[in-house]
């Protein structure tokens, strides 16, 4: 038996170690290299936020001029930049609020109701898909065409209209994914116990779908605060943060841009790590 098995076991073993080397060494090394590639520019950004400037113009230069933490003390010294940052925050908050409410309502409608009771469900799904897949430059350009045609002045209002438009689909999709496993028996129980629809919604439905709604809201906030293409078409007099930074590339970038970038990155990554830790604790 052992003699017969001998020749056949030697080859699989050899290939098994080869295989192990592949998954134990080559793939992880490669993956860590990709992660390094993804993280590297962020390190460069943080690095340059400590770079001294030369001359009277306070603009970042490609060359390294020495370490300074000056820009962190003077983070608000560029008036246009600070104003655009707060504008972006306000814009993201308002459009996230609206998009989350509307998107959640649409998600509930799409999960609960089917064609005989909800005609047009299919059309809604097509529009959501199209909205997610359509090139942003076309959406931005066509919105500009709309506002120009109807003589609507561009500013905060048009930005909110646009940001809600491209956030709704993402909120709907995110909330719907979480709603899929929803047990409607819980709502029926509430009705049987005499709860009104309003009470059932606020006391039973909403708490249950809250994680999905929050995830959708986070997504909407992230998309809104990072949006450049559409905002660039519609900003007019009120300039959001990415549009301001893009405009600054023509004349030179004040180092405070990298300070803001570093701050946004730190806050965002902090939240993400916190949520991972919390999820692990729960599990």
């Amino acid at each position, binding site marked *: 038996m052992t003699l017969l098995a001998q020749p056949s076991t030697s080859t699989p073993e050899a*290939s098994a170690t080869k295989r192990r080397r592949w*998954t134990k060494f080559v793939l992880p090394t*490669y*993956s860590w290299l*990709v*992660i390094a*590639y*993804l993280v590297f520019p962020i390190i*460069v*950004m943080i*690095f340059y936020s400590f770079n001294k400037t030369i001359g009277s113009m306070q603009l*970042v230069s*490609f060359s*390294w001029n020495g370490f300074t933490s000056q820009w962190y003390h003077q983070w608000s010294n560029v008036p246009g930049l600070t104003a655009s940052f707060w504008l972006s925050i306000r814009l993201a908050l308002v459009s996230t609020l609206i998009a989350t409410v509307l998107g959640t*309502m649409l998600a509930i*409608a*799409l999960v*609960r*109701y089917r064609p005989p*009771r*909800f005609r047009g469900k299919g059309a*809604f799904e*097509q*529009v959501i*898909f*199209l*909205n997610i*897949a359509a090139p942003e*430059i*076309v*959406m931005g*350009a066509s919105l500009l*065409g*709309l506002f*120009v*045609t109807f003589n609507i002045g561009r500013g905060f209002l048009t930005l909110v209209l646009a940001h*809600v*438009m491209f956030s709704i*689909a993402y909120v709907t*999709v*995110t909330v*719907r994914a979480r709603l899929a496993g929803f047990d409607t028996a819980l709502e029926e129980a509430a009705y049987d116990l005499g709860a009104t629809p309003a009470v059932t919604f606020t006391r039973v439905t909403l708490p249950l779908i809250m994680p999905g709604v929050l995830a959708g809201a986070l997504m909407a906030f*992230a998309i809104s605060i*990072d949006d*450049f*293409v559409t905002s*660039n*078409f519609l900003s007019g007099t009120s300039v959001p943060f*990415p549009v301001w*930074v*893009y405009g600054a*590339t023509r004349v030179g*970038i004040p180092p405070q841009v*990298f300070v803001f*970038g570093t701050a*946004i990155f730190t806050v965002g*990554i902090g939240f993400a*790590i916190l949520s*991972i830790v919390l999820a*692990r604790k729960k599990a």
Partner: protein
Amino acid sequence: MEQLVPPDHPGGVAPRRKRRVGRALAPYLLSLPSGLWLLLLFLVPLLLMLSLSLKTCSPSTGACVMAWHWGEFSSEVSLYHQEFITSLYFAAAATIVDLIISFPIAYWIAFYGGRRKNFFLLMLLVPFFVSFVIRTIVWEFVLANNGVVLGALKHIHLLPQGFHILGTSYAVMAGLAYNYLPFTALPLYVALERIDRRVLEAAYDLYATKRVGFMKVIMPLTVPGIFAAFLLTFIPMFGDYVNQEILGGTSNTMIGTVIQNQFLVTLDYAGGASLSAILLVVALLGIFLYARLLGSRTIEQYL
């Protein structure tokens, strides 16, 4: 059930009917606000843009008159076909680079990520925590002639002094590839993660080698994810102009740059609208092909 319950008190009938009407309307009431928003600010503008592309606009006042000017399309195409080709080439090349870079890492996280899966996924998403425009500017610093990378490599004489990459097509493609990598990696990860491990085990039980298992089980099951990754990466890259404007030179203009200039600088709305319409048609071809092959709802799994 309801018929068995007699309407004991007269007031009981009206509220119930009211509620029934409310229930019948519920799906429509819930979807109406989003529906109106998307209709008025997404679909109507797209149609308006198509009509705008057939109008002639006076360059001085910006007023547009419907002229059924179909020639606009052919003249714009003959003027800017090079920019379209450049965009197609850059977007296709950068998408393929992204697919090649991200497949192995997506595979590794999905199959060998273990308990640290979430951490690795966060690492894949890490570029998104820096604003898109800033990310692109930082690439300018990475690729700059005397910046941290090229400057250091030139200092130790690994690169000739005259070497430069900023302002070339390679810089644009590198920027595109970096900026959109998570859009490629995540759908691939989702597709690989969803593969039922028992199918793979069944293949091994039937004496499939690792290689055959990979080629005949894993790859076919990943194809929808590859399509989704391609769609979600290629279309935004195709219309992108930030990378080209910041990292590229004057000779490799992409179509997005032209559209943006026509709308915001030269105020040639008709020209910009017809170029956007062509861009939309190209994107729609991909979108419809995807919806036909895989169904429009499948895209949601990969977001």
